[in-house]
């Protein structure tokens, strides 16, 4: 009897192990749906698996930026498999377009997955380039502030001028010897 209990215990452990090991094998499919609710921009991310909605899975929404992805929020899917994000209105963009990424990461049941989509919700960065030609510390080489160029030239001239004078003195030492003869 004791032997059977051990056998059953090992079997149960193996089954639990197998279940947990293969639990993450489930694949969820994500898709975007963008809509306008009142004055808000709402991004709905729908998660389905084998055609059925996936409930209670955390979805992280990001906006692609130059150096890394900017996280907007993390929302769990509801009964219908949809996670809704009220999208902020102040994300800057050069042409108004933003690349969004929705991700499932480190979920107990579903594999890591992501979907990307473009939407025209960015705040346009408008620059009239009015300061491009201004001289500044942060400007390009040929737009250095005049005071900085003038001060640098003044100091460099004084120091190197003195050095040049010192070198000329060495030649003068020789000349003095010759004229003494």
């Amino acid at each position, binding site marked *: 009897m004791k032997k059977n209990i051990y056998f059953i215990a090992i079997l149960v452990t193996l089954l639990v192990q197998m279940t947990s090991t293969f639990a993450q094998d489930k694949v969820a499919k994500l898709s975007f749906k963008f809509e306008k609710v009142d004055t808000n921009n709402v991004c709905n991310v729908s998660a389905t698996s084998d055609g059925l909605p996936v409930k209670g899975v955390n979805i992280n929404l990001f906006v692609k930026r130059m*150096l*890394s992805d900017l996280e907007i929020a993390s929302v769990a899917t509801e009964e219908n498999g949809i996670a809704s994000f009220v999208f902020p209105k102040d994300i800057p963009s050069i042409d108004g377009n933003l690349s969004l990424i929705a991700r499932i990461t480190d979920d107990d049941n579903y594999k890591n997955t992501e979907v990307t989509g473009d939407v025209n919700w960015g705040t346009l960065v408008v620059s009239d380039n009015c300061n491009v030609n201004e001289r500044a*510390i*942060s*400007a*390009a*080489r040929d737009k*250095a*502030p005049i005071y*900085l*160029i003038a001060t*640098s030239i003044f100091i*460099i001239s004084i*120091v*190197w001028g*003195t*050095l040049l*004078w*010192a*070198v000329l*003195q*060495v*030649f*003068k*030492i*020789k000349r*003095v*010897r*010759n004229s*003494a003869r």
Partner: protein
Amino acid sequence: MSKETIKKESTQYETFTQEEYMIMKDDLLRPMRKIRLGGKIWIAFLVLVCCAGVYAYYIQETKSKYVTVSLRDITFWGVYISNFVFFVALSLVGVLMSAVLKLTNFEWYRPLSRIAEIIAVAAIMLAGVSIVAAMGRPDRLHYLIIHGRIQSPIVWDIIVIMTYLATSLVLLYIPLIPSLSTCKNHLTNLPKWQLKMYKFLSFGWEGTTEQWKILKRTVKVLTVLVIPLGISIHTVTAWLFATTLRAEWDSANLGAYFVSGAFLLGVSAMILAVYTFRRAYHLEKYLTEMHFDKLGKVLVLMALIYGYFNINEFLVPAYKMSGLVSDKLKNLFNGEEAMFFWSVLLFGIILPAILPLFKQMRKPLPLTLLSLGVFIAGWFKRYLIVIPGQADPYLPIQNVPESWKHYSPSMVEWTIVAASFAAMMLIVTLFSKYFPIISVWEVAEGRLEGKEEIINYK
């Protein structure tokens, strides 16, 4: 200087005679007559280490730097840059031990000035080499001149390093002219090329009154010039850090902190050099216990000044413990780096501020051992300034391998650093073999005060 001391010293000058001058000239030129076996072994060893460094640099530049050095996106300035800061600091020895003492009429500077100036020249050259070793693309070095922006502290640093090197070279050379003439006239058994070199470099020096007048005036002007230049070079080096976006370097104190540390390091290097030359070339009559006594007192003064700037640098941020630096400070005070940090402070500031107050500790050997501690701690102090400061960038870098967050120099980096030290010592050693390491005329002049009859030192 008290009246009694002045009287005592002036009495001493009056006892100086032409015969004594001839003996002194013999003594000071003796190291140049022949390179002994010990000297040859020492030079061979230094050349070997330099060759190892050249080979390591070849490996670094031919294989991927990702493999050969430990620098990554987070710690982008490693041991090469801390070595650069160390050498720049060391180069200020010429300012303190030659220029400042000379202008403030401290007579005891005389036998030390040339030693200080050659160390300064060698150190600033090796500082430049350390920068090139650190460059990702050394083949683009000239871009700094072609495309450099005058608004950039890196360009300021390049300008000030080049200027300081040129000034140090001229300041080393001009007072050397009378000595070169002495070598040409006195060391007639040297190889012909060497005598020709002395003749060429001595620029027709005959020691006429007019020539002395020109030489002394030029040296005086350069001596005044080198002080603000030396302070500028290390202040600009400090600004390289202060203007870089890292919380630990955001300090208005950084320029003064770097300069005061450089003076302390310079005094320790001077003590080490004086002790070595005194023993190796038997110059006990010229590099006397009095020099160690004075240098010991300067060491205390500099350690106290540097200690003051350290308190400023650490106490205020530690009082506020702002989020950006608190982890770093805790790590230094009682964390992973605490042993390292406190050892550096103990050997680099606390001991040199206290021990030389006792006369026995200002004797040559104890003071040299103490200075060795200050010198080594000085190198690690620069390591602590440069490297841990980079661990926390303002812009977080995501998803990087764990190895990027910690920096430890690779063998290639250590070899190049060791070679830079060997190269510096090699320059100083070779200089002392081909040129008088103690300026004969400057020492003689110190003892000849009021002795117009011996004006022409031949």
